[in-house]
């Protein structure tokens, strides 16, 4: 837990005064880091803060255009300015890297086992057979089932989680002193993320290496890191042991970052106003000053150095004041009060906005190019039930491939579903006329995940926002009046209408997407992962905006997300999907406090909590393997292959699970309420 002491042994990786420039634009502006054996250092920051550049600089992997100054010493060898031959000798042996995207990090044309064996043979003088054997051992160590057989597979035959395991195996092949992991789990689902983090932990323990974990996910950092360094605008602004940093941050940026993460118990989020500065145009003084509510003239004149006791250093002139007054994020940042609880109408009396029963959608698997022959079906959605009442938010949760997006598109198509029933605002979609469909399109709108992809790059914002109005046949005058109104509603300025999407930051783009969806005054807003492409501090602003809009306009939301803490924060009810089926649904508090389906339990326990103490003490349900393919439709429960409950059942009960399809609010034959130290 506690960092090993400074004088005990020399650092295995020592970065001092690291500066990196790309074409004259600074990316890293003076970073000092030291890693000692067996230590895990978490490097946190939002996109563009320079955290990945630090990791790449430490490996000597920056492109030639980068200008690097300062010193990076690995076990006494200086890396900056070292030749290619020198670096190749160190890379892989003394220090190894695990990349974010395991698919592009493995060569697609070589077998996984051979690639690991190659890593072994590059640095050790061993024979081919021995190296192969070592590769199999390593694959076994990182938890790949049947490693002998799987080592002969190609990367595309591995799932994302398995590929990342293989990358870790390759990284530890030569017992490195330092492992650099750059967002190692960002591309993975939560349950798989939990597995991979566990493997990373094992790997680090087995090799005794130091681990530099770069991540934007404060939950992951809380669970893994001994010490945490927070980066902002190319500099470290705060560094402290993990428990202390999470419990008592001293720098306003860290406070905002921590306050912006939704977590159980806190109903208010503190978004950090503004966007990270462009590093070319840094203001004089503290880089965070323009966004900092505590900033005064001293902050704006000179950039503060990282100072304070060795254990807890901050680059902020306000740090002593914050420490003395014991300020919390909610004291520093302005928060809007959550709206008073409305007069509670019993749920049953509210009119239904959306009702979905037994929705099914299959895609044909075709063979042959021109005249495809159907050889099978992908059961993307296979029995989904949803129910949203007026003014309600339903969180739809599931891992990738669980059929969330297909469900949304099936609903929004407003056509007769393959099977089951969809009822929007009391109209069955199977019985709609063309005219009714057109009218209903105005009442149901969607906000997409990626705010850049969902806005036409060639249209000015004003036209983007006006599009649904025009589609509904609004006249010119009404459209012109409505645009500034809408932009102001989502916290933008009316003058922004003439600009193009690329001139906005990610959060602002998402606001434009929301403004477009609100243009025709819909009753139901479908939000498809609306915040997962955004940084935490910006995400909080969007969540607050959605909450306010819902209260003001009486909207109902269908909020799809893989991020359970976000769902818990914003939703009233939650519905969990697995393999195209709804496995559990109910009120948010109920489901999160007492999940009854084993999958929900595993999902909840896999979500990292940004609180080191809670994160390390809670019990986990680790699921084995990956979600099965949707091509093979399970006769009974789809979860049997990974179910921890099923594993402990007798033969008779097992037959029931495998053969009979569970139904009801909790789609499980053996639901076990289990209190959870919830996510």
């Amino acid at each position: 837990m506690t960092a090993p002491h400074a004088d005990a042994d020399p650092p295995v990786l020592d970065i001092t005064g690291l500066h990196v420039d790309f074409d004259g634009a600074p990316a890293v502006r003076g970073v000092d880091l030291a890693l000692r054996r067996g230590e895990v250092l978490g490097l946190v920051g939002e996109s563009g803060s320079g955290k990945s550049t630090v990791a790449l600089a430490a490996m000597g992997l920056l492109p030639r255009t980068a200008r690097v100054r300062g010193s990076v010493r690995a076990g006494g060898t200086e890396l900056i300015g070292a030749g290619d031959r020198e670096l190749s000798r160190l890379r892989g042996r003394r220090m190894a890297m695990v990349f974010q995207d395991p698919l592009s990090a493995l060569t697609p044309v070589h077998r996984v086992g051979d690639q690991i064996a190659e890593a072994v043979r590059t640095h050790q003088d061993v024979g081919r057979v021995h190296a192969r054997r070592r590769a199999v051992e390593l694959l076994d160590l990182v938890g790949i089932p049947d490693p002998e057989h799987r080592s002969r597979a190609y990367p595309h035959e591995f799932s994302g989680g398995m590929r990342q395991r293989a990358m870790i195996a390759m990284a530890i092949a030569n017992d490195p002193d330092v492992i650099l992991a750059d967002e190692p789990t960002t591309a993975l689902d939560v349950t798989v993320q939990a597995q991979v983090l566990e493997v990373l932990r094992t790997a680090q323990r087995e090799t005794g290496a130091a681990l530099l974990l770069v991540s934007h996910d404060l939950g992951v950092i809380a669970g893994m890191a001994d010490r945490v360094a927070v980066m902002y605008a190319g500099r470290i602004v705060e560094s402290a042991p993990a428990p202390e940093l999470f419990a008592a941050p001293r720098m306003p940026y860290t406070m905002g970052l921590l306050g912006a993460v939704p977590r159980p118990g806190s109903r208010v989020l503190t978004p950090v106003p503004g966007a990270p500065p462009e590093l070319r145009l840094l203001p004089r003084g503290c880089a965070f000053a323009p966004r900092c509510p505590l900033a005064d003239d001293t902050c704006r004149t000179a950039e503060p150095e990282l100072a304070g006791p060795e254990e807890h250093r901050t680059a902020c002139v306000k740090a002593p004041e914050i420490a003395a007054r014991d300020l919390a994020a909610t004291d520093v940042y302005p928060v809007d009060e959550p709206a008073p609880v409305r007069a509670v109408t019993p749920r049953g009396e509210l009119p239904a906005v959306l009702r979905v029963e037994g929705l099914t959608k299959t895609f044909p698997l075709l063979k042959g190019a021109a005249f495809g022959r159907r050889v099978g079906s992908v059961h993307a959605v296979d029995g989904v039930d949803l129910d949203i009442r007026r003014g309600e938010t339903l969180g739809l949760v599931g891992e990738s491939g669980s059929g969330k997006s297909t469900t949304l598109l099936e609903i929004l198509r407003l056509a007769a579903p393959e099977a089951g029933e969809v009822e929007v605002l009391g109209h069955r979609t199977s019985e709609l006329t063309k005219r009714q469909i057109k009218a209903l399109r105005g009442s149901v709108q969607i906000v997409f995940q990626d705010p850049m992809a969902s806005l036409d790059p060639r249209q000015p914002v004003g036209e983007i926002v006006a599009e649904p109005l025009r589609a509904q046949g609004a006249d010119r005058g009404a459209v012109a009046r409505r645009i500034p109104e809408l932009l102001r509603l989502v916290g933008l300025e009316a003058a922004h209408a003439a600009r193009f999407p690329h001139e906005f930051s990610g959060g602002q783009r998402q606001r434009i997407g929301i403004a477009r969806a609100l243009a025709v005054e819909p009753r139901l807003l479908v939000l498809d992962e609306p915040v997962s492409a955004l940084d935490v501090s910006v995400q909080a602003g969007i969540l607050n905006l959605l909450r306010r809009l819902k209260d003001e306009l009486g909207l109902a939301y269908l909020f799809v997300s893989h991020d359970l803490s976000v769902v818990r924060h914003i939703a009233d009810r939650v519905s969990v999907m697995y393999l195209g089926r709804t496995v559990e649904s109910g009120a948010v508090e109920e489901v999160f406090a007492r999940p009854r389906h084993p999958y929900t339990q595993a999902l909840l326990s896999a979500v990292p909590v940004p609180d080191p103490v809670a994160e390390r003490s809670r019990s986990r349900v680790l699921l084995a393997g990956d979600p099965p393919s949707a091509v093979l439709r399970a006769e009974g429960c789809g979860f049997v292959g990974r179910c921890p409950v099923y594993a402990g059942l007798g033969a008779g009960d097992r037959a029931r699970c495998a053969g009979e399809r569970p139904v009801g609010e909790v789609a499980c034959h053996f639901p076990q309420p289990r209190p959870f130290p919830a996510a």
Partner: protein
Amino acid sequence: MTITATPPETAAPEAPEPTGRTRVALRRFAASTNAVVGAAALLLLFLLAFGGPYLTHWSHTDIDYSALRQAPSATHWWGTNRIGQDVYAQVLHGLQKSLLIGLLVALFATVLASVVGACAGYFGGWTDRLVTFFIDLLLVFPAFLIIAIVSPRLRDTGWLAFVGLLAVFGWMITARVVRSMTRSLKERDFVRAAELMGVHPLRIIFRHILPNVSSFLIVDATIAVGGAVMSETGLSYFGFGVQPPDVSLGTLIADGSGAAVTYPWMFFFAAGLLVVFVLAVNFLGDGLRDALDPTSGQHRRRRRRKGTTHDRAAR
């Protein structure tokens, strides 16, 4: 910047009229030097081609038997050719033909290609299969032969029919590219968003798909202008297309190329104007592309300029 939780009560004093895409594009077009130079050069070429012949009393068919292969002089401004025709009159007449043929063929072919390609890519299914089949069919036709066979029969309808023929055989590859670009655009969220809002498919094609492939279309069209002039030359050389006594830049260049070293005026005036023409179209296309693509060129330049001023301020 404006990530406030509540909308600012103090709204902007007066909301400026939201500018439409066309107006924005026009403004950007006017601001780009390339575009203005290209457009001006093209305009001057048109003026020269259609106004220039009135400045001399020679017409392109007149033959001055007293001046064969004469160098430029006061009577024959750009000299004469080997049978005593005035090169100035001939080149300008040829320029008329080449300007019209080049621009019209490029325009027709690009419009046809973009509409057909975008429809095939967007609607998919049987529309796509039929259109692709038809395109492939046209591609395997020997276009040169067919034009050679058909054009003598269309002699009476004149050069417009010739333009049509060149366009009909020049759009297929562009259409295939547009089709595949459309297929990838169709998967983008903004197209899906428009579909879910109930926007009419043709409207989606014209408002979302085509503007997003416009960069390609413009580059392709500028190349097609040069290509059309060249294929017209080739056909005319073999006796199809523009026939004597009518002339085009292509036929003039073909005639004069043998004399380029000995009697340069027979070749270089025609060739020079062709180069100017193609260059002007390229400049215009560049400017048009920048004007229609909000993320291109200018923006980057502006940012760099901002960066340098900041650096200066910092020092």
